[in-house]
């Protein structure tokens, strides 16, 4: 069957992969993967899907379960109902309330609270 095959791979709901998944294109996981995933495209862990392993992708959307670290060059979105445990690294991390998350977020930015004027309050007294 002629199918634009490079783009999207799908691991169906009853599919279980034990091992490493790598390569190009995007990946939608409705089943389960035990092992690391490293792809050049977008990854999606659908509701009911689960990954026990680290994920490296261009973008990641999690509606299922992820136990592992994430390295994304793009956004990481955790949807309501997702369960995520691990370290998350991405350009933008969003977490919907209702998800169950125990994660360390690593975002590279400077937090500058701005300068404090020197004890002005003391002077006023």
């Amino acid at each position, binding site marked *: 069957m002629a199918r634009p095959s490079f783009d999207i791979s799908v691991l169906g709901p009853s599919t279980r992969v034990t091992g490493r998944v790598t390569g190009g294109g995007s990946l939608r996981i409705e089943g389960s993967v*035990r092992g690391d995933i490293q792809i050049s495209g977008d990854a999606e862990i659908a509701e009911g899907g689960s990954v*026990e392993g680290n994920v*490296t992708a261009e973008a990641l959307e999690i509606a299922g379960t992820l136990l592992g670290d994430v390295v994304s060059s793009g*956004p990481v979105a955790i949807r309501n109902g997702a369960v995520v445990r691990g370290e998350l690294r991405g350009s933008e991390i969003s977490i919907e*309330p209702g998800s169950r998350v125990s994660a*360390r977020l690593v975002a590279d930015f400077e*937090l500058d*609270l*701005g300068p404090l004027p020197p004890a002005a309050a003391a002077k006023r007294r």
Partner: protein
Amino acid sequence: MSQSSVIGAGTIVRGNVEGEGSLEIFGRVEGDVSMGGEVTVSEGGAVRGNVAGEKISVHGAVQGDLLATQAVLLERGAKVVGDLSAPRVGIANGALVRGTVRTEGEPALAAPNKRVAAPAVFKPSAFAAKPVAKAEPKLAPPVEPDDEDDEDEEDDYDYDQQREAAVMPPARPKEKEPERRPPPPVLPSLGKGAKAKKKKHRD
């Protein structure tokens, strides 16, 4: 309904703030904030200290931990360095966070230096040894070399290598499990039943 207070844009509070009602911060607090009601750090507002409340909404900057009995919500433009803990946590697109996030009931992550060992954990054999159940306090249990799934690793799942290639900047102590056997000859005997069964056991 409790009172609501406001720390205006030009106001700086040096010290802790406590109260029963809700609090909106447009200015600056150098100290901890602990309210019975809702705490809002508005755009332009900043807190250098921990914040506790029933619900915490952040549009500004916080350097400190956020602990809420209901929800912590970080909106676009928020910048937070610190840990977030609440039954519900929301981080909108465009909010920047550095720290741990924990929704209620979730086990705490292992401390950072223990996490360093994590890559070694995610090998299939480790899964077999340690079911990653909710009860697990740490995400990086010690790697168990003596798992029963020796035979399964027909290929070189060199996760360590994979991890290093992927990104991880710090040099991680490679808790190398005994190196996997090299791939067996191409046509292994059809002991399919046995192997397939093994797989299913792990589930």
